């Protein structure tokens, strides 16, 4: 059944939000489409309802709340920290499930204490689900982009390779493929003898060659990538192609990605892993431990949470914590959340605004309640 009316527990949910110090914010249902496609990628295009204004502006029905809430925050310039909550309809083209459904959640913008803001988001989300689904066994999964980045950095790979791996975090298939390439590097194809010659000379000659070709072909005026950028990446590419991750490092990386254990044991396991491998994770481990401590301070038992090292979201604005809650034995995510410190600046905020939040899938919660 399509969920036309608000779920009956909406009022209760809004009380919960208010009790947790969040102020309700509303955003228009019709939104400019560009920020969503820019942030989440073109893959979203077939999953949203797109339309056009008379003047050709691309518009869509609100497919989620985080981006509209952040845009609203930037627009109203009310300063930080701010704790927003929302409850309303979102619209997505789904193969299974309805095309319109309700979401509610909290976005915590500008809280500088990252560990406690993270812990608060997880605790709020879990407590709200627990109160809506009393007595149900829940699976709480937590991942951390920062830890993965620290592991990759500490392996001493070329910067380009680090970027590729970090970019793929959360996309298991792509990550596997990259690791395979790292184990068996392929020579660079498609270089003409002239070009190979130029590459043996200095970079200035290469830049000059690219610049001249661009001018001759009338491409310069609108070229987005400059001769310098192309030359630099070509040099980098050749270096990367020769990079081979030694067997031991590759094994370490796969071993790390397969880590899955209670959060209460995770910090020690990560420290042990770093020690055994002779790696240093820098600040990442300290922040990880601080988050676990902050969770305990809020009364969350970390042994109830599963840390999965490979859990992440392959979008470049997610920066640290990711988490989700399901019923034990089910795949349906009831609430998902995470930290997105890069989103607000990407959307045009002048200052860096750290941000963390979560979103509840009210249709799935309603179904779970009915069962």
């Amino acid at each position, binding site marked *: 059944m399509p969920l036309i009316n608000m779920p009956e527990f909406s009022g209760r949910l809004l009380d919960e939000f208010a009790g947790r110090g969040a102020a309700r914010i509303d955003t228009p249902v019709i939104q400019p489409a560009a920020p969503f*496609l820019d942030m989440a990628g073109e*893959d979203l*295009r077939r999953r949203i309802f797109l339309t056009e204004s008379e003047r050709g502006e691309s518009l869509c029905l609100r497919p989620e709340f985080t981006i509209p809430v952040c845009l609203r925050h930037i627009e109203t310039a009310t300063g930080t920290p701010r704790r927003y909550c929302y409850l309303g309809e979102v619209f997505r083209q789904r193969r299974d499930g309805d095309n319109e459904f309700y979401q509610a959640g909290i976005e915590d913008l500008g809280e500088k204490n990252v560990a406690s803001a993270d812990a608060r988001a997880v605790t709020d989300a879990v407590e709200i689900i627990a109160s809506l689904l009393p007595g149900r066994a829940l699976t709480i999964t937590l991942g951390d982009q920062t830890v993965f980045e620290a592991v990759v950095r500490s392996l001493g790979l070329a910067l380009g390779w680090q970027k*590729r791996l970090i970019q793929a975090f959360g996309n298991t*298939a*792509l990550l596997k493929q990259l690791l395979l390439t790292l184990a068996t590097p392929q020579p660079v194809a498609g270089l003409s003898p002239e070009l190979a010659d130029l590459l043996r000379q200095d970079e200035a000659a290469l830049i000059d060659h690219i610049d001249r070709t661009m001018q001759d*072909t009338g491409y310069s005026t609108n070229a987005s*990538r400059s001769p310098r950028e192309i030359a630099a*990446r070509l040099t980098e590419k050749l270096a990367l192609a020769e990079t081979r991750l030694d067997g031991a490092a590759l094994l370490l990386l796969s071993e790390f990605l397969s880590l899955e254990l209670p959060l209460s044991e995770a910090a020690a396991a990560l420290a042990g892993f770093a020690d055994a491998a002779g790696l240093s994770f820098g600040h990442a481990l300290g922040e990880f431990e601080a988050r676990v401590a902050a969770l305990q301070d809020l009364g969350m038992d970390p042994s109830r949470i599963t840390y999965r090292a490979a859990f992440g979201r392959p979008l*470049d604005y997610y920066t640290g914590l990711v988490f989700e809650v399901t019923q034990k034995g089910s795949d349906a995510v009831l609430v998902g959340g995470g930290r997105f410190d890069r989103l607000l600046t990407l959307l045009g905020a002048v200052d860096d605004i750290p941000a963390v939040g979560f979103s509840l899938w009210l249709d799935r919660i309603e179904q779970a309640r009915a069962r």
Partner: protein
Amino acid sequence: MTITIALPSKGRMKDDASAIFERAGLPIVAVGNDRSYRGRVEGHEDIEIAFLSASEIARELGAGAVDFGVTGEDLVREGLVDADRQVEIVARLGFGHADVVVAVPEIWLDVDTMADLGDVAADFRARHGRRLQIATKYWRLTQQHFSSQHGIQLYRIVESLGATEGAPAAGQADIIVDITSTGSTLRANHLKILSDGVILKSQACLVRARKLAHEGDLRIAHIVDAVRNAL
């Protein structure tokens, strides 16, 4: 039930399609004058020919408004969600060859594969303040190729309805996804096809709408066999 076959309404595609039906023993005659958009098959009163534009044919097939159609595979795969569930490609007809390809400026010496493009796309926003832009009219095929097959998410599609090859030089987009048959237009515009940038090798096809009513209909089977045997 009348069987409707949609054929391209003009150009080489129309002539080539008519020739195949002629060889298949299903000669097509226009109703009224030569430029009429209706036709019939000599000796088969229960078959109707509708002359439509090639992209409309894909759409009509998806909607089940026609039983068969002759159109490019590119248009079928671009125009229909889950094309193989909605239609069946009965025969590839050997004309109207065109590849849907990813092409980048020739001078992007560092970009030869989709993986290279992935690297460039990942850094693009940081370097240029916007996502990598792709001019195309094939947004569905582009997405499948970039997002599903190569895990590249960070790009923007700029819809282009014609002269797509000119978009990079004109500054409307950075790269293109377009059809090419010989590659000469791409070369003339200083674009190169990535080594793994062929998204689809397309040609004209006889396509059947998957309809329940077709099951056990001997006339349907006859048309399928006749066209296949004429190739």
